[in-house]
């Protein structure tokens, strides 16, 4: 590359060559290998980098959980098979897990799944790959920030991963890192905090980029109410990331000060640790950490779920061959949900005894926020009604999302009310609740997205048979793992216990469930293998398909598969809404957004695309 694009005065995409661009020419002219595949500025390559890294972290986080499930199933000291011998003597002598190691796995499973797995895949992966295509943009607004966002995320991932190898191992105070425990924890916690600072910086860069892209780079005629629901979901998600993450960054800085400079932001006076009074200036507030943490972490729940709902909306409309039911209401609901998510955080803190007035406030807001969620889910359900549904793999995952997320959402209601939450909060019930939301909920939607947009990224479709094996296996065993948690929780088995509560009389009769969950988890792992094979096999030898294999209406399908750099061969103009399926009188059952209205209606005037 000759001149720096910045110095040319305009940002051209010549320095953002894509995978296929290089492939089509047989060599990357003016582009080094590094610029094309590693430090790429192209949103599609960055999206794929994000998605693949995110999926690898999901797999890694899953293996951590498998080890934990073994420990819970056989709490009385049974060596972990296969990988037990690889673990160090400090963690698992003779392959038998120590409590300290269990705590590390618990904290890191949560951290990895949320911050390194699901969010990067949902926002970094799908957001990056799909959003610019769906709005008819040549790329993201700030390609260099986009690249920086991925690499800072990667650095955060490396930091988190490396923390397993420092003295004392990884962070072991839970993914919530509650003070004062986290302040006196081993070095791994410092690594965790630095890792979080990287991840927060990455999502900050990403979210600014998404908002600017969606606001500024929409194609001609693409008004806000013509945006696909997925784009709306990503826009709201970006605002949540932009505004909710900085308080956690602030909290992280304060905790770093507590750990490294000996301050007492989160350390109360007169704290006794292991029988000795801690010498500290004191006067800090452990509750402050919880407030700052949940100020992020509740909106984070919606960061996990909104892109998933967006994906489901796309796949559902496409495969029912009819418009989304109540698109306008869904859009308003998702915006309202975004606002509300900032004032519900303390429903995670009813157990702290923060007072009934505050509790009453947060119970009320929590009940209110359930309304837009229920509206969106109901609209998606109603969209099925009267459709001629095609049950391909993406649709199977998207359909399964609805009842699975429904279970997760409805079991959350008792947790939003202090009286029932106080009884259930520290039990497996909570684990069951949020895993239904995120695992068979969000992750199923993400799988739907992978199968759905794979042809756009590669020009080939994934294998349907392997896809269906993957779906049915995952569907069954997800429920085998998570459904018993409601039982365990309701009988009062505490979460975060290294031995699964086996020393308690009320828990002992239910120990068999842990064994069942272990084999369920192992089977779930096995059923991911068809997906992994399918994914890599289909890149090279999947069935080649046209640019619009699903007969879809949104803009990304009017671009070539895979899209070249700059995405579109001609600048797209939008004439209609996103889900015009089975329009009466139309010659085919889908009317792409780029298709001018033949009914004589003039296209809505829109700001000119400056070219």
């Amino acid at each position: 590359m000759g001149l720096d694009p910045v110095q040319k005065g305009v940002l051209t995409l010549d320095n953002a060559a894509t995978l296929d661009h290089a492939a089509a020419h047989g060599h990357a002219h003016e582009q080094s290998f590094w610029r094309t595949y590693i430090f790429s500025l192209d949103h599609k390559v960055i999206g794929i980098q994000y998605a693949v890294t995110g999926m690898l972290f999901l797999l890694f986080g899953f293996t951590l959980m498998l080890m934990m499930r073994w420990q819970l199933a056989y709490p009385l000291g049974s060596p972990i098979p296969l990988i037990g011998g690889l673990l160090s003597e400090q963690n698992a002598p003779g392959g038998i897990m120590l409590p300290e190691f269990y705590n590390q796995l618990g904290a890191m499973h949560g951290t990895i799944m949320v911050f390194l797995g699901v969010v990067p895949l949902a926002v970094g992966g799908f957001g990056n790959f799909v959003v610019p295509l769906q709005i008819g943009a040549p790329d993201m607004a700030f390609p260099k920030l986009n690249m920086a966002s991925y690499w800072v995320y990667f650095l955060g991932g490396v930091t988190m991963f490396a923390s397993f190898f420092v003295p004392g191992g990884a962070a072991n105070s839970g993914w919530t890192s509650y003070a004062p425990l986290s302040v006196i924890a081993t070095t791994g916690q410092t690594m965790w905090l630095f890792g979080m600072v990287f991840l927060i910086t990455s999502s900050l860069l990403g979210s600014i980029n998404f908002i600017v892209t969606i606001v500024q780079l929409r194609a001609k005629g693409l008004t806000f109410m013509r945006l696909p629901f997925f784009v709306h979901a990503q826009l709201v998600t970006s605002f949540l990331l932009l505004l909710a993450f900085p308080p956690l960054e602030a909290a992280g800085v304060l905790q770093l000060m507590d750990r490294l400079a000996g301050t007492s932001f989160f350390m109360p006076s007169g704290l006794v640790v292991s029988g000795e009074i801690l010498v500290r200036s004191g006067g800090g507030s452990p509750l402050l950490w919880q407030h700052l943490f949940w100020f992020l972490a509740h909106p984070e729940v919606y960061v996990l779920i909104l892109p998933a709902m967006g994906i489901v909306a796309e796949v559902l409309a496409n495969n029912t061959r009819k418009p989304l039911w109540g698109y306008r209401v869904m859009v308003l609901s998702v915006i309202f949900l975004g606002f509300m998510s900032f004032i519900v955080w303390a429903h995670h803190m009813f157990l702290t005894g923060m007072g009934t007035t505050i509790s009453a406030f947060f119970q009320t807001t929590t009940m209110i926020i359930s309304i837009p969620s229920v509206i969106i889910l109901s609209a998606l359900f109603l969209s099925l009604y009267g459709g001629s549904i095609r049950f391909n793999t993406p649709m199977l995952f998207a359909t399964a999302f609805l009842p699975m997320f429904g279970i997760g959402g409805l079991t959350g209601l008792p947790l939003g009310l202090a009286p029932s939450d106080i009884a259930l909060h520290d039990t497996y019930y909570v684990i069951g609740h949020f895993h239904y939301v995120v695992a068979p909920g969000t992750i199923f939607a993400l799988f739907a997205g992978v199968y759905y947009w794979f042809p756009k990224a590669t020009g080939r479709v994934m294998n349907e048979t392997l896809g269906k094996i993957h779906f049915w296996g995952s569907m069954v065993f997800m429920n085998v793992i998570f459904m018993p948690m409601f039982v365990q929780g309701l009988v009062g088995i505490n979460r975060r216990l290294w031995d699964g509560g086996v020393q308690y009389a009320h828990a002992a009769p239910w120990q068999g469930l842990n064994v069942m969950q272990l084999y369920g988890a192992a089977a779930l792992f096995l059923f991911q293998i068809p997906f992994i094979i399918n994914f890599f096999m289909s890149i090279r030898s999947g069935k080649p398909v046209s640019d619009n294999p699903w007969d879809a209406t949104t803009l990304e399908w009017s671009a070539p598969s895979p899209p070249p750099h700059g995405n579109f061969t001609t600048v797209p103009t939008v004439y209609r809404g996103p889900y015009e399926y089975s329009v009466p009188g139309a010659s085919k059952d889908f009317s792409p957004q780029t298709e001018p209205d033949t009914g004589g209606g003039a296209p809505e005037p829109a700001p000119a695309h400056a070219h």
Partner: protein
Amino acid sequence: MDIPYVVEARPDTGLNNAKLGIWLFLASEVMLFGALFSSYVLLRVAAPEWPHGYEILHVPVATFNTAVLITSSITMVMAFASLKMKDFAQYKKFIGATVLLGFVFLGVKGYEYGDKFLHHEYPSESTFLAIYFTLTGLHMLHVIGGMIVNGYFWGPGSKLWHTAPEQFTNRIEVSGLYWHFVDLVWIFLFPVLYLL
């Protein structure tokens, strides 16, 4: 296809990409410092006793520093205005002055820190000192960040003026918005920490 609205504003939003981007970034910065100020309030309200800032910190020195930072905001605006009037030589002077004033601010802050350390007043001594060092330290990092950006636009980055003057002017505007924000944070920090 080139990325649109890099230089010119999109008609319906009235903004170019970078300007919307910096405003969003500043919104997130408001949340960052907002969380820290909230923490300050919470810790102070919960504390049985809290020292007055003027008993511990050196108010005249900080007043001088406030003046320095406000002056640097003025020179920043003048730098932008010079570019608008196509006076590149004057721009160089003003942006240089902005960076220099940044150094003065850091020098004075360094003197204050050094004085505290000399008297063994560290962040670990009390919650007041902890929040003082954390807030001003984080603010200082922001000042340094702004100085690096402005230093770049004073030096190698200013070459862009000769090829794309409009884009360069936009950049100074965006950088200026950030610099004013950093200034504004100090305007809040000064009374909260030194006077109350």
